[in-house]
């Protein structure tokens, strides 16, 4: 009885033209029924074994694809990130400024950059040591991340200098962001081994003008930042006002 009902089920398989053994089964029709049934069971087992192996190969392969993808991501992050602060590095921000310059040129939209330099940073290193200096750099990086707009990109430009790219920002808006960052840093203390280190930053804002080139824009931000230092530090100057 049992045998009979199983054959009934297997007949459904025989008649299904979409199954891979359909053709072979059709050819076997001329053979004795019993022989055909045995053959069908063997094929079905082989097919299931293949399916199982296929699933395994795919699982393993997916594992390799994932780890490759992750390794690539780590590499590309390392290539565009400053190791200490986690901000973008010089190369990454230059790419971004370049792209923003093209965009402003095409659409005639405003665009600014801000260069920030920590005041008396050498003094921090000399009085508290390099570890404290690193702590200060990380603190400035954190303050930047919390002061800028979502669309802005912050970078460690070099030593104690940071450069921010502010897409579609007017000079007024850029000064606003710079002042927010300056006051936040000036009003905070960096804790280091039970000591409170106070620091300030001087900032220079440069605004895109039609025809501006990337090195000109950065030079203008530098001039503005140096002007901020010369007029007493802990302040923001912008290049358009200077010129």
């Amino acid at each position, binding site marked *: 009885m049992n045998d009979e009902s199983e054959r009934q089920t297997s007949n459904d398989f025989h008649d299904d033209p979409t199954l891979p053994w359909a053709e072979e089964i059709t050819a076997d029709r001329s053979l004795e029924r019993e022989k055909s049934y045995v053959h069908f069971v063997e094929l079905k087992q082989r097919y299931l074994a293949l399916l199982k192996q296929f699933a395994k190969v795919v699982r393993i392969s997916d594992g*390799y694809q994932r780890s490759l993808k992750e390794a690539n991501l780590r590499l590309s992050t390392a290539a565009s990130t400053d190791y200490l602060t986690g901000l973008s590095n010089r190369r990454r921000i230059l790419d971004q400024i370049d792209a923003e310059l093209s965009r402003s040129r095409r659409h005639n939209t405003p665009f600014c950059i801000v260069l920030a330099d920590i005041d008396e940073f050498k003094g921090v290193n000399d009085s508290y040591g390099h570890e404290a200096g690193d702590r200060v750099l990380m603190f400035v990086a954190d303050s930047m991340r919390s002061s800028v707009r979502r669309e802005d990109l912050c970078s460690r430009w070099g030593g104690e200098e940071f450069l921010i790219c502010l897409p579609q920002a007017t000079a007024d808006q850029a000064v606003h962001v710079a002042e927010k960052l300056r006051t936040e840093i000036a009003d905070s203390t960096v804790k280091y081994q039970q000591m409170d280190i106070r620091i300030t930053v001087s900032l220079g804002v440069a605004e895109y003008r039609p025809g501006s080139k990337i090195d000109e824009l950065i030079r203008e931000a530098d001039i503005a930042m140096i002007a901020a230092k010369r007029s007493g530090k802990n302040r923001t100057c912008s290049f358009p006002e200077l010129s």
Partner: protein
Amino acid sequence: MEKLAIEQALSSPSVMFDPDSGLLEIAGESYPENSFEFYAPIIAWLKQYLAERDSPVAFRIDLSYLNTSSTKCMIDLLDELESAFKSGRTVMVEWYYDDENERELDTIDEFREDFSMPFSAVPRKDPA
């Protein structure tokens, strides 16, 4: 029986199968243009070796990347060793991995779950 030696290339691993010592080594990355073509002589060599000799075999795998078809070929190689093991041969598989990458260990576990022969995951000393 001759040694099987294939030099490492950009997309294919180095292969060093020594019939006298019983040490079979494969190292590098494996994503050749045609994996089945690359692995066919290796599988053929292993089949012949297992048929001709009955000395112990150590299979040492140090692959940091395998594409899908290489994975299938690797299972075929391991299947050959598994059936030799089941018929009483001494077989040992060592799979090297980067211990900073947890995924690699997971992948080795996927490989070894269906085999009963000794199959160990060994952390790599130097990065490959």
